């Protein structure tokens, strides 16, 4: 239901970039699926190859972190956007995020994600709506649906496969703690469609994850006394830092 919408929006975004003479591609990672997805994806790849669609199939299911790290290695270009099946990107804003990432030389930029239920026609909430502040150490509010500098993320070691279900959060904190910058861009980056089984709705698990990540990154609550290169960084390509 959602994957075609996600891929279609990504292909439109690549088309917008290409019109501005910026090359791009859409990489779909099939993580050892056993439900017939790969056959469907291969058909799509044939149809949309010229539009930039490439499908990479993993021989066996390796998990989210491994799939994303695979994309990091296989991607043809320096800047990448991670999208899940329940995401939809806003094509016209992609060049502005790219501009922001290039201008700030950050490890990642992200923007507002309008939160919709699958059946609703308008958003009722906004995710990833604030800059990275100290309170990121108390709980994650920045989704993985963001644009990254592949080189910097690779240099930082990519996603940690041992942190199942909170790879995104772990990576943000790892980047922040290793002196990288993560910048909020006050534009709408895309949509997040909430499914009843979305990971975001598993509150009990999220609480466990937060507790574990806090033990790793902020056990003695000293972070707020340490300087961070990422603290309240907001950047708009037409305005600079705010």
């Amino acid at each position, binding site marked *: 239901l959602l994957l075609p919408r996600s891929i279609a929006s990504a292909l439109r975004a690549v088309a917008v970039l290409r019109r501005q003479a910026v090359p791009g591609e859409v990489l779909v990672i099939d993580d050892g699926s056993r439900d017939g997805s790969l056959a469907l994806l291969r058909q799509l790849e044939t149809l949309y190859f010229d539009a930039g669609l490439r499908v990479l199939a993993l021989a066996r299911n390796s998990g989210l972190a491994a799939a994303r790290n695979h994309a990091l290695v296989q991607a043809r270009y320096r800047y990448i956007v991670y999208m899940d099946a329940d995401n939809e990107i*806003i094509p016209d804003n992609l060049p502005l995020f790219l501009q922001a990432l290039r201008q700030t030389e950050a490890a990642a930029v992200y923007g507002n994600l309008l939160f919709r239920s699958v059946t609703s026609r308008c958003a009722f909430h906004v995710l990833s709506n604030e800059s990275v502040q100290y309170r990121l150490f108390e709980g994650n509010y920045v989704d993985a649906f963001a644009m990254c500098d592949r080189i910097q993320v690779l240099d930082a070691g990519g996603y940690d496969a041992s942190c199942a279900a909170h790879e995104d959060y772990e990576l943000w904190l790892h980047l922040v703690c290793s002196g990288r910058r993560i910048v909020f861009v006050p534009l709408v980056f895309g949509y997040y469609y909430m499914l009843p089984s979305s990971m975001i709705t598993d509150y009990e698990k999220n609480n466990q994850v937060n507790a574990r990540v806090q033990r790793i990154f902020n056990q003695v609550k000293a972070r707020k006394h340490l300087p961070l290169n990422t603290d309240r960084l907001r950047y708009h390509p037409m305005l600079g830092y705010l």
Partner: protein
Amino acid sequence: MQDRLAETSRIRSALVLIPGMVNYFYNLNGRRIAEALRELHFKVDIGQLATCPEREYDWCILVNITEVLAGFGDQAAGLEKIRALRKRCRAMASCSLDCVATPWYHRLQEYCTQAGVEAILDLGLYDQRAYLPEASRAMYHFIPSGLTSSEVRELEAATGTDSERNIPWAFIGHLTPERAAIVDFLIQAVDPRGFVYLPGLAPYTEKGSPHLNQQQFERVLRHTRYQVWCSHHSHFYMEPERFRTSLLTGGVPVKVVESRGKLPKSVPFSYLLVEESQLHERLQERVFRQVRRRFQQDFLRLPRLHGSLADFLVGTQVLRPDEVRTVRGTPWLATLHQVAA
């Protein structure tokens, strides 16, 4: 005779109390009121409750009492301090920048009663007296929140080209479900490149808040054509800060309302109050300059802030009518009545 001369030439004193460390737009309005009072030849002290001078004043205004108490910290001790201050002032008022139907206006009213503050000045664009119960009306005074002299100069200086006004619209405020829905509509139906900043609810401090401060807010609006917002409550209100900030940054404010049919007939700037479904027609680039010219002309017809304050201060006998008429030779009462007519 000498006493009369002395009275004529006596300089009035005023104290403007601001909260300091909480929501910055109260500090900003404190500074605006102080400027307006200086234009009325008051000697003005501006400060916070904890450190205000131990002297007597002709008039004291709290901007506003709830925020001043929040800035002070200890509510009971703060109220006691305001009561003591009241004894050293001939008259005292609290400003309000709120819709009178909200719980926070009622709280403000209660604090005023407890502290012996006799007047609430609604610095706004629309008289809300009719929305108040009869018993609350005596305390309420509508003060049209026109520009100060420095704002008029700022507006004159701001009229330039729009070559850097490339952001089609901006939606800034704390996050609510209604605001998320309107942003979704703007993205789909108007232009996806709008500036969107909707952090969670937190105090609007000048530093250290997730919200934009006044300088950052103005910087965004100087590059934006339309500032769009909706109230975070269900009652009708004309947010004066939104309108004035758009004016001074050369943009157009557009407030999204649930139904234009429910608007009061005499509401000003009604052409800037728009239902969500009309946004794509109203926010077009080609009509921007035309709408902005109309908005600027209409706003400049409002009485200037010191004129509105003068009218109130004469009514409460802090100033005499003849003193007001001598302020830069402008008969403010007459101007006010002309505008009202």
